[in-house]
C-alpha cells in the first residue's frame, strides 16, 4: 500500500484513477487539477507516490512533467509516475535524469489497466523504475546503425528491456522462465557489450545500461 497524490486536468480521468488506485489498496491523499496545485498538495501531504498527467494547465504543455522533475528534486523520497498521451522516450529521459530509481513512465491508457497501474505504484514506491511495456517494445524494435545495442543477442535485448521496465534479476528470470544465474550471465554480457564493465557498483551499471538503452 502506498500513499498517492493524483493530478489530471480532466475530472473524469482524475476520479477514475483515484477509484482504480483505491480499489488496488493504495490511499489517495489528495488530487490536483493543474501543476501548481500538484506542487502545493505534494508539499502538504508528502505522499509516497505522485501520479500525474504530463500535459496540464497552466500552459497545457509539459507542466505535469516539469512538476514531476521539480518534485523529485524537492522530495527525493517521493516516487513519481507520469502518464503520457504520446509515446516519446524523450519525456521518460527528462524524468529519469541521472536517477532512474522511483520513476515511472506509462502511456495514459494504462490507467484503465488496474493491474499495471497499481503494480507500477507499488514498484516505484519501493524505488524501482517502471517503463511502459509498449514504450520498451518500441525502443527494442527500433534499430540504430553503429549502435552497441545492435551487438546484443535477442535474449540479451529481452533482458535489457525487462531491466528498463524496472525488474530485478529474479523478476526477469521468472518472466523469461530461466534461472537467476542465467539472467546474471546475460546481464554481465550486456554490461561488457555496452562498455560498462569498468563501473564497480552493480546497481550503478544497471542504471547506466538502462540509460544507454533509453538514450539510444
Amino acid at each position: 500500500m502506498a500513499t498517492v497524490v493524483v493530478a489530471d486536468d480532466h475530472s473524469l480521468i482524475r476520479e477514475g484513477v483515484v477509484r482504480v488506485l483505491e480499489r488496488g489498496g493504495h490511499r489517495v491523499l489528495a488530487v490536483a487539477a493543474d501543476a501548481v496545485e500538484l506542487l502545493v498538495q505534494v508539499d502538504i501531504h508528502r505522499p509516497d507516490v505522485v501520479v500525474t498527467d504530463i500535459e496540464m494547465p497552466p500552459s497545457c504543455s509539459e507542466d505535469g512533467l516539469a512538476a514531476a522533475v521539480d518534485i523529485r528534486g524537492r522530495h527525493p523520497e517521493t516516487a513519481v509516475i507520469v502518464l503520457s498521451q504520446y509515446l516519446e522516450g524523450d519525456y521518460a529521459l527528462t524524468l529519469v535524469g541521472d536517477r532512474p530509481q522511483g520513476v515511472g513512465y506509462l502511456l495514459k491508457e494504462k490507467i484503465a489497466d488496474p493491474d499495471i497501474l497499481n503494480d507500477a505504484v507499488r514498484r516505484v514506491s519501493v524505488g524501482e523504475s517502471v517503463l511502459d511495456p509498449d514504450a520498451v517494445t518500441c525502443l527494442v524494435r527500433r534499430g540504430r546503425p553503429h549502435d552497441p545495442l545492435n551487438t546484443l543477442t535477442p535474449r540479451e535485448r529481452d533482458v535489457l528491456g525487462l531491466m528498463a521496465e524496472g525488474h530485478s534479476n529474479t523478476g526477469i528470470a521468472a518472466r523469461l522462465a530461466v534461472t537467476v544465474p542465467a539472467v546474471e550471465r546475460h546481464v554481465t554480457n550486456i554490461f561488457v557489450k555496452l562498455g560498462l564493465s569498468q563501473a564497480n557498483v552493480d546497481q550503478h551499471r544497471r542504471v547506466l545500461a538502462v540509460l544507454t538503452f533509453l538514450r539510444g
Partner: protein
Amino acid sequence: MTEGRVQSGPVSASLEQRVLSVAPQPVFVVDHEGRVVFANNAAARGFGYDHPEDMIGLPSHQTWHHRRPDGTPIPTDECRLLAATRAGVAAHGPHEWFVRADGSMFPTTWWCAPFEVDGDIGAVFAFTDLTERHAAEEARRARDAAEIRAAESLAAQRRILEAATSARRQIARDLHDGAQQRMLNVLLALQLTREHVPSELEALDSMLMDAMAEARHAITELRDLAAGIHPTILNTRGLVPALRSLSARTAVPTSVTAHDYGGAAAEIESCAYFVVAEALTNVVKHACATVVEVDVDGDADTLQITVRDDGCGGATPGRGLGLVGMADRVTAMGGELSITSPPRRGTTICVRLPRRSAPVRPSSSLPAS
C-alpha cells in the same frame, strides 16, 4: 552623340556658331512662323537628316511635331512649341514626341527661349532624345516587376505552406484533446463498469474486455495518426527530439546525429522536419536500404540537414511527387535542396535552410517600381 573628330563651322562663322555646330546638344532656331532658320549638327542627327542645311526652311510643327505616338494629329493651335514661339516666352515640354525624317517617332524633352530673328520674334529650341533613357527605365521596370512577382510567388508559397502546417498542428491537437481523450474516458468507463459485473456473468465481462481492447487499439491508432500528421514534440521540444522520435517510428534502422546547430525559427524547424519525414518515407518505400543516417548541423545563418541511405539510389529530382514536394517546401523557406543518387550507391539528400526566416511581407507592402 559626341563626334570623334573636331568639327569647325564655316571659316567666316563666329565662335558662337562654331560652338553650336559641334555641341552634342541638339539646338535649332525658328522664326515667328515656326520655320527653321538654323539647326546644328546634333539637331540634324536627332531628326534623321544628313546635314543641318536639309532642315532650313522646314515648318517645325508640321514636320516634326504634327502627331502623337497613338497617331492622332496635333492641331497647329494646340502646339506648345508654336505657342511659346509666338508668345515670346521661355517654355519646357518635359514629355513630348517628335517625328523623325523617316516618319519614326522618339520621346523627347525640350526647352525654348525667345530669340529675335531678322527683327521679328522667334525662338531657340534645345531638345534631348529620351529613347535610351526610356528603354533603360522600361528594362528596370520589367526587372522590378519580375522580382516582385518572384517575391510574391515565394511569399504566397510560404503562406500556403505555413497555413498547411498550422492546420496539421491543429488537427493533431484536436485528435489528442478530442478523440483520444474521449476514447480514454470510454476505456476507463468500461473498466469501472466491469467492477459492477457479477462474477457469474463471465460472458458479459468478456464482452466488456473485448470493447476495451478495441478502445485501446483506437487510442494507439489515434496516437500514431496524430504523430504522423504533426508530432506534438516538434512544438514542445523542437527539431532534434522530434527527429529522434521519428527515427524510432521508421521501419529502416535510422540514426540521428545532431551537432550543436543553435536552434532555428519554428517554421524552419517544421519545414526541416517534414522534409526529413518525406525523405524517410521515400527510403522505406523505394530505397531497399539497410541503414539511414540523419545529420543535423548548422552555422550562424544556416541549418543543414543531410539524410543519407545505403539503398539502390537512382532517385531523380522532378520525378515523383515526394522529391518535388520536398524541394517546394525548402524553396518556399528560402533554402536549397540537393539530391545525389547514383544507381546502386545510395541516396543523399542535403537541405540548407536559413535559420531565421525573413518575415513574409504582405504583397501591398512590396516596394513600388
